């Protein structure tokens, strides 16, 4: 079972990296870009587990380690 976990900074947390990239995109001609947020994509191979187990585990993993919920939000998708 493969899964992808996405971790991003909460909206309330300033993202200076995102701002710098946004400005760079503006500079190279994409004037319409208003906001850029940088996050992490974590790809996992979970072995042979059911989708339910995978989802339960991924939620735990995010809460315990993959995201710091003080500053970050997470989502994941189980790819089967």
């Amino acid at each position, binding site marked *: 079972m493969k899964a992808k976990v996405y971790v991003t*900074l909460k909206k309330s*947390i*300033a993202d*200076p*990296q995102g701002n*710098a990239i946004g400005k760079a995109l503006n500079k190279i001609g994409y004037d319409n870009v208003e906001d850029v947020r940088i996050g*992490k994509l974590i790809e996992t191979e979970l072995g042979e587990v059911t989708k339910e187990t995978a989802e339960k585990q991924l939620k735990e993993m995010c809460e315990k*380690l*993959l995201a*710091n919920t*003080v*500053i970050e939000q997470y989502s994941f998708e189980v790819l089967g």
Partner: protein
Amino acid sequence: MKFGIVVFPGSNCDIDCYHALRDSLNQDVDYIWHDTEGLKEYDCIILPGGFSYGDYLRCGAVAPFSKVMDEIRVHAEKGKLLVGICNGFQILTEMGLLPGALVRNKNLKFICNTVPLKVENIDTPFTNRCDLGQVINIPIAHGEGNYVVEKDELAKMKENRQILFTYQENPNGSVLDIAGICNEGKNVLGMMPHPERACEELLGNREGRLVFESIISFLEGGWKSE
């Protein structure tokens, strides 16, 4: 009186702390390997600066799962002193022993400098040898020292006087210029600046001694909370 310094893979200020405590301040001090089981009794444990576990994922994110850390948590929950300096501060927030989190410096740069800090509360085991409002110059060296915390939590921290050190000139974007805080119980300190790098004349600065001398004074019973 015994100090312990936890060594994680990637710690790099452990030797500085050891030197400052043993050679500059004449204290009994041990290194504690992160894999230790059966932690001995210590009066004060220090989580040193560096890049524990390569700072992979987030700064200080992996260290809380080191074997010794369950016992370190118990040590803190008993009310004993626990100090996190720089990466150690990041670890303490990741463990939830201190509120908030440390994110990338506002200017995206790693900053290595000596900066003036204002002492905001002297009624703690970590600052009792300072004067209120005293300005001390302490080195900083970090890329992720920008302290963030939820508004409600910040209000609580202010009310409990948990903000111990603030920057005179904010280098990293920290909310309220915060450089160092303690927990509600006032036995856990986290600070981004490095007092251990400023403990002897030969290094050009002795002002960091105030933090350790405060701890020693507290442990010797020379200071009691009001």
